[in-house]
């Protein structure tokens, strides 16, 4: 079984908001120098699930990432965590979702036959959650996302549990297919020393758009402006001699202003 996992390097989602700078001219968010980027959390879940399938059933796991040199860190980590191979596709780190889907589709076409593509359900930078579906559409694949469990594999199909707005679906999807993985699916492992050593020596090829026969990216979504929204509020503090008096006064004030 050949499994492709798409991974993306993102600014650490635990970066405090006040440390994110905005480069207004370039229309990009600049994370602080001291906090290194990380592999997108849901992508780590997708990779972990692929590696578990590899361990349980035997599979080749190929990690793919589109981006600048930073993407290579995510790929090296993927190998350390158990991916068999990794491919870096060189492009802008802040490509829009449609362009990312196109580049991934071309790269996966170049990798060769596959049975399954595992993606994170969305990436924590913009939480767009659409590149995976664009990729499925371009490759003519069925997609199921977000999934919280792979229940089983049988007769060229997967049975998975999908999260819905108000519950869960059990879904059967024919292979080859693409799955968007949610964090409920597993708890990603930490890299073992052996994996780290393998990753250090691993050859990770870099493909360019030209290698994939692609022209320059045509962005279909452009950032117009980035800003930090400040909510104008002149907070009225409720007075009172004791916490209980403050509680009573708060209710009175809400009544006076017609709110309750």
């Amino acid at each position, binding site marked *: 079984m050949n499994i492709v996992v798409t991974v993306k390097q993102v*600014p650490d989602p635990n*970066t405090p*908001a006040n440390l*994110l700078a*905005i480069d207004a001219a370039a229309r990009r968010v600049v994370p602080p120098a001291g906090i290194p980027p990380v592999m997108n959390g849901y992508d780590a879940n997708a990779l972990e699930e692929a590696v578990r399938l590899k361990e349980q059933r035997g599979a080749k796991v190929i990690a793919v990432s589109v981006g600048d040199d930073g993407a290579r860190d995510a790929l090296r980590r993927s190998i350390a965590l158990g991916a068999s191979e990794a491919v870096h596709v060189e492009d802008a780190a802040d490509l*829009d979702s*449609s362009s990312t889907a196109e580049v991934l589709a071309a790269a996966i076409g170049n990798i060769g036959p596959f049975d399954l593509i595992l993606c994170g359900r969305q990436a*924590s*930078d*913009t*939480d767009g*959650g*659409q590149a*995976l*579906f*664009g990729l*499925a*559409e371009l490759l003519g694949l*069925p*997609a*199921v996302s977000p999934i919280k469990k792979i229940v089983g594999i049988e007769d060229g199909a997967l049975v998975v549990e999908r*999260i*819905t*707005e*108000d*519950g*869960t*679906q*059990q*879904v*059967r999807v024919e292979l080859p297919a693409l799955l968007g993985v949610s964090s409920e699916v597993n708890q990603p492992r930490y890299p073992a020393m052996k994996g780290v050593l393998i990753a250090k020596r691993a050859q990770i090829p870099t493909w360019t758009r030209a290698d994939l026969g692609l022209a320059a990216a045509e*962005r*279909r*979504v*452009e*950032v117009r*402006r*980035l*800003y*930090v*929204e400040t*909510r104008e*509020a002149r*907070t*009225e*503090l*409720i007075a009172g001699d*004791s*916490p*209980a*008096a403050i*509680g*009573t006064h*708060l*209710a*009175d004030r*809400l009544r006076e*202003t017609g*709110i*309750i």
Partner: protein
Amino acid sequence: MGTVLVFGDAPRGKLGPGSFEVAAAGRALAEALGARLVGGLVGRDVGAAAEAFLAAGMVELYVADGARYEPCTGAEYAAAGDAILEACGPTVALFPHTLDTREWAARLAARRRTGLVTDCVRVIVDQGQVVMTKPVYGGSVTAEYVVRGTPQLATMRAGAAEPATPGAVGHVVPIDVGPVASRVRVLQETTESGPAGPRLKDARVVVAGGLGVGGAEHWHLVEEAAAALGGAVGASRAVTDLGWVTSAHQVGLTGTTVAPDLYVAIGISGAVQHVAGITRAKTIVAINKDPDANIVRMATFGAIGDARAIVPAFVERVKQLRG
């Protein structure tokens, strides 16, 4: 004269509240662009839903109705959506943001080689451009986007706009869609019953608690305040992670986005992630022992002190006032 298309959302034949919000946003766009407003609806047995949706002020409503649309699969909905785009040739198409629309809107974008912005909190016309706004980086930053391509696609988060008021009523245009080979089959579906009381997503009053409530044994304070105000119970991620309440109550970017008239935050510091879920609350009350907490700074009213002493007196007085 262009066309603005608004898709409704009707799981199990019932029109979702997000449909009217998207219709209102679409109507404002159509007015600003001098375009006509049309609707689209895909589902099974959606006759009644279509009638209700038409009242949102559209000249035509394109409807693809059939057993094949329940439950939703990406292939079927993308094909139906594509047929509707073909029929009305819009310059802009909006969708309510759900786990389902996210798939088929993205598939339409890929099919039509155009751009899509998901989970928008605002879609407006500014300087002649359709501008789509959404929080990014966990809500720390707000991004404005423009789409290059036709149609310009956006999904809109629940609570992003006031629902549409009734407008001119047009007529339904049935859409036939050719057969689609779907390789996805839903074997079974379970719905988890949500929390008791009003639904968090549409509640007019939400009372939410955080770590400052002081422990699971004090959580009843939040529930009592919600009951006294006739509101829904919400929670910060910290307390749902601790299991004081189920994650169905979580308010914030990764939980439920709410847009109540009154949001009472008890012992919630106001992390970016949480605040991103309440930006459309009209009045925010912060009950918190820290006067410098982020939530206090953005609140309309601040009650500073120990929640365990303030809340019982507040509840008592609210009960008297609301008699």
